[in-house]
């Protein structure tokens, strides 16, 4: 079998970039840590931007696959690759100041982010279960290490330990599920599994599939597999929290959506109820628990659990409109959540504070950050002109059109309740009187620039989703179940 390696060039270059970042950190002089940090970050950002540009420029105009269907190089993968590289760039940009204060070895930090992005990219391309598993583990291991990278911080160490332990359990479950499926069907390639999965209801298939979903559910922090998330979110270095919340979830959704769309050609609704109940439980638990949080990182953790529940609403629909809505929401959510985290990271780097009450007076300390966080909160709550409104609208209509009216109604109810805790943050910033006169926070050009870009993205998706919707539509057309749709 001949393999056209040029198709894999972006992935290879990205792997090379990861090592390059590590090496640059080693060869640069040790005595000026501030400059070394900035130089390494610059290499990572420039490299990822170059890879993204290259991936877009060299993208084949039709669906290609390599290694006999193990990896797909198509519009769907391309959309996610661009998104993930963008997320990687944003996370590096927002963490420069943070790393300068908290982390001793910038090379490890940025290098692992690059490898995590590589893992995510492969997850979006994978067309076979073991390939997907390896990609997922590449991402997960990078995150395990990154979560524990603030050495000497007990919370960080605890979070990392928990994450590894539970990650191991879920990996075991996932692998067991894969082996059961393989044992019955004799294949792990998505497209070949389809017919068997749709008609074969032997207990091995059912248990195998449930375990597979459980493993994926762990990565997505679906209820009841979510219990690790708040502890890890709180303990991890904050930029890594952003990475876990955005990159790892979007990548897992990319995998799940492709899996569901490739193994079935529409007749795959036996699992819809299970997925719907998971979605309902996830958003309800996420929303209700977020109501009582005081720490902003824990708030964002539960909020992201709730958001995952909302995305699952689109997955449950199992229609092209649902898949489009999921992709659209993931992009809008990436902008929005990164905007929120960029503010949280910067505030933490400047003031070392992470309680919601500490945000009192932020509107005078830094009007830009207060504005960006407000926009992010409004968008997460789903208020118009921001991304969250339009993408949630698509998600819920897709579910309602697919006959899941109760799920859409529950999602709207949860959305309304979530207003309470999102607006609480806004109230702190603008209305509450701070105890001490807030000092003006000066932002570095890179943070300010990242904030503006993320804000612009959050609003652009909400005001003019047309071009993005067209790109998303092209992406889902590459999936087998939705091929040929408009």
């Amino acid at each position: 079998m001949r393999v056209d390696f040029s198709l894999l060039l972006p992935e290879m270059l990205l792997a090379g970039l990861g090592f390059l970042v590590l090496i640059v950190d080693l060869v640069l002089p040790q005595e000026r840590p501030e400059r070394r940090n900035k130089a390494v970050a610059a290499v990572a950002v420039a490299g990822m931007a170059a890879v993204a540009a290259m991936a877009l420029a060299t993208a084949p105009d039709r669906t290609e696959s390599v290694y006999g269907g193990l990896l797909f190089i198509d519009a769907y993968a391309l959309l996610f690759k661009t998104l993930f590289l963008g997320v990687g760039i944003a996370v590096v940009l927002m963490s420069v100041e943070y790393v300068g204060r908290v982390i001793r070895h910038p090379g490890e930090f940025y290098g692992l982010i690059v490898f995590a992005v590589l893992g995510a990219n492969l997850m979006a391309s994978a067309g076979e279960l073991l390939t997907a598993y390896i990609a997922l583990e590449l991402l997960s291991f990078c995150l395990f290490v990154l979560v524990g990278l603030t050495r000497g911080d007990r919370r960080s160490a605890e979070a990392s330990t928990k994450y590894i332990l539970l990650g191991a359990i879920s990996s075991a479950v996932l692998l067991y599920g894969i082996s059961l499926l393989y044992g019955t069907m004799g294949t792990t390639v998505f497209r070949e599994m389809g017919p068997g999965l749709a008609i074969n209801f032997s207990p091995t298939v059912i248990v195998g599939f449930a375990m597979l979903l459980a493993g994926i559910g762990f990565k997505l922090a679906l209820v009841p597999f979510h219990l690790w998330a708040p502890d890890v979110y709180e303990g991890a270095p904050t930029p890594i929290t952003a990475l876990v919340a955005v990159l790892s979830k979007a990548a897992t959704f990319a995998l799940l959506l492709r899996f569901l769309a490739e193994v079935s050609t529409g007749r795959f609704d036996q699992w819809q109820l299970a997925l719907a109940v998971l979605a309902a439980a996830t958003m309800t638990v996420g929303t209700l628990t977020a109501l009582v949080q005081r720490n902003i990182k824990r708030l964002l953790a539960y909020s992201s659990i709730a958001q995952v529940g909302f995305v699952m609403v689109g997955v449950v629909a199992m229609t092209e409109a649902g898949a489009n809505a999921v992709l659209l929401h993931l992009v809008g959510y990436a902008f929005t959540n990164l905007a929120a985290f960029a503010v949280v990271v910067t505030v933490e780097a400047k003031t070392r504070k992470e309680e919601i009450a500490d945000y009192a007076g932020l509107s005078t300390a830094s009007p830009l950050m207060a504005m960006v966080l407000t926009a992010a909160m409004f968008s997460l709550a789903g208020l118009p002109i921001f991304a969250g409104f339009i993408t949630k609208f698509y998600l819920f209509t897709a579910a309602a059109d697919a006959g899941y009216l109760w799920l859409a109604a529950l999602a709207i109810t949860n959305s309304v309740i979530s207003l309470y805790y999102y607006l609480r943050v806004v109230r702190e910033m603008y209305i509450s009187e701070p105890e001490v006169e807030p000092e003006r926070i000066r932002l570095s050009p890179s943070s300010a620039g990242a904030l503006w870009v993320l804000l612009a993205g959050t609003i652009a998706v909400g005001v003019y989703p047309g071009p993005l919707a067209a790109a998303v539509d092209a992406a889902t057309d590459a999936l087998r179940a939705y091929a040929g749709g408009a």
Partner: protein
Amino acid sequence: MISEAAVWGIIGLPLAAGALAALALLPALRPLARASGYAAVLGVAGAFGLSLAALDSTLGADRAAGFAARSWLTVGDPASAGGFEVTVGLLLDPLSAVMVALVSGVSMLVMVFSLGYMRKEPGGEGGAWADYPRYFTYMSWFTAAMLGLVLAYNLIQLFVFWELVGLFSYLLIGFWYHRPAAAAAAKKAFIVTRIGDFGFMLALLYLYLHRAEFLAQGANPFEIPDILAVAPLLSAGVATWVALGILAGAMGKSAQFPLNTWLPDAMEGPTPVSSLIHAATMVAAGVFLVARMFPLFEESAVALNAVAIVGGTTAVLAAAMAIVANDIKRVLAFSTVSQLGYMFLALGVGAWQIAIFHLLTHAFFKCLLFLTAGSVHHSVHTFDMRYMGGLRAWMPLTYAATVIGALSLVGIAPLAGFWSKDEVLAAAWSADGAGSVLVSRLVFVLGMAAVFMTAFYVFRLLLMTFHGRFRGGIDAVPADELTPDEAILAGHVHRAESPWVMLLPMAVLALLAGVAGVALNAVGAFGPLPAHGLTHFLGGLSRDFDQGVAGLSTALALAGIGLAIAAHRRGVLGLTDLPRPWSVVHRFLAGRLYMDHLYETLIVRRLLYRGLFFAADWADRRLVDGTVDLVGWVGRNGGRAVAQLQTGQVQVYGVGVFMGVVVMLMLFMFQR
């Protein structure tokens, strides 16, 4: 052929200029306040230049140049039944090209005038140019919104700009927000137009619900060209209901009876604002909207008759109210409402091209008259005509401009107003529209009556302001009638002509008010000018000059003028001390038919406060709050209960994973 980017520039330039002007609101850039005015003028002048280019391109071979609509958002799956795309785009055809040229041109002139008018008296707080940045920002954005409305390709896009026009008119009318009267007027304009907008929104909803009829024809239910193309194929009722909803929106914006009450109060804004909003832009939006959607109205005789009757009634009632007003701007405001009635009348009898023709000529002479009112105020600091008189002695140029505007408004040949008003009346008389003949004849009579009343109130205004002896200006106004802002100006009457920045726009408009009628739409070929140039350009309609109608209307106008002069000679033009029953009529009209009273006391207080709101309040407290409290209670306690799971114990978390697998298996069994 003009490029699409250039047409977007028509909207974009005023928008950018407004943003630039807003920068001067920053404390650090305060010294640049004066420059913000020039930035705004330049922005709108650029838009005017592009508008002329756009107009020129529609004069050529390919007249209708709709630009490819871009997908804004999709509703449902566009590939399947019931799904469609909501688009944004530009619709450049003769109608919108004429309108953008008019809007940007008038706006430019008004902004130049404002450079002089908005300058504060020296020694005021913040320097002479303190009001500039905020004023010119609002004005630029208002203009941009209006231009966007005119160029909209999609009804939803149009609605967005429609609401933006409403928002900026609110900000402009309430520009002097510290004055309670201005704040109240702004609020009133916003709320009353909102009632109409609700009708517009219902029309949009109705379109959405009946989208299947459009999709079956391969048309988009919100794209204007598609709606107009599909209009003849729509099932009975759909066209009528949509047209009536749109009419409601148009009535609100164009201040048609019974939604006319906001416009006279809106005179609380700065005079140039009144001139812009009430001559060429906001109130014209309603007329434009009906003209734009005309093929839809044509499918429904009911809707057309409604338009005609609303127009005819408004023309007469507003003219009657104008007769008894003493505030020069109020007279002009009622006059605007009355003239808009003429335009609706023309629309209702099927002559939308003529409605646009009258809209154009009216824009010129009414804008001119508002500017002259501003010029007069600049001298005597009051708008009350009872304290003016004899101003022609030291304001000869303003006087000359007013005479031209007045004669044009009355409709005396050969000034612009004569030609357009005559065509409106001739169209009503011929009654060859899709509406009923009876209605056409009825509104013809109403229109003729309004001619007589118009002539009387216009000359009443002219004579009371410029003739006779000077009655003291603001110094003569009783102190208890002055607002605190006005009281400062007492004793500052300067008997002088206004500065040239104010006179120049007036001169341009006076020229237009004089010749536009012949130049745009001559009744016969006239030198290089083609016959019926404008109406042909807009869409082919032409009607021969009707000498009978013209003779009758001129006779009525002259009678009205004669009556005004006679009353002036006898010194009773102030219309005080009238004998019964005229005094009763006077009181009734001066009270504006007690419509405000009716709305406020009967509908708002009695019906809404004591009836509907009371019931709603009860339901809200008992039913809604109770439910919300319950949800909140569940939320609080549920949150605490669920948070208990978060023990921090890894073992518990691990159990969760396996619980999940079990639950999924059970659900799968259940689904089987």
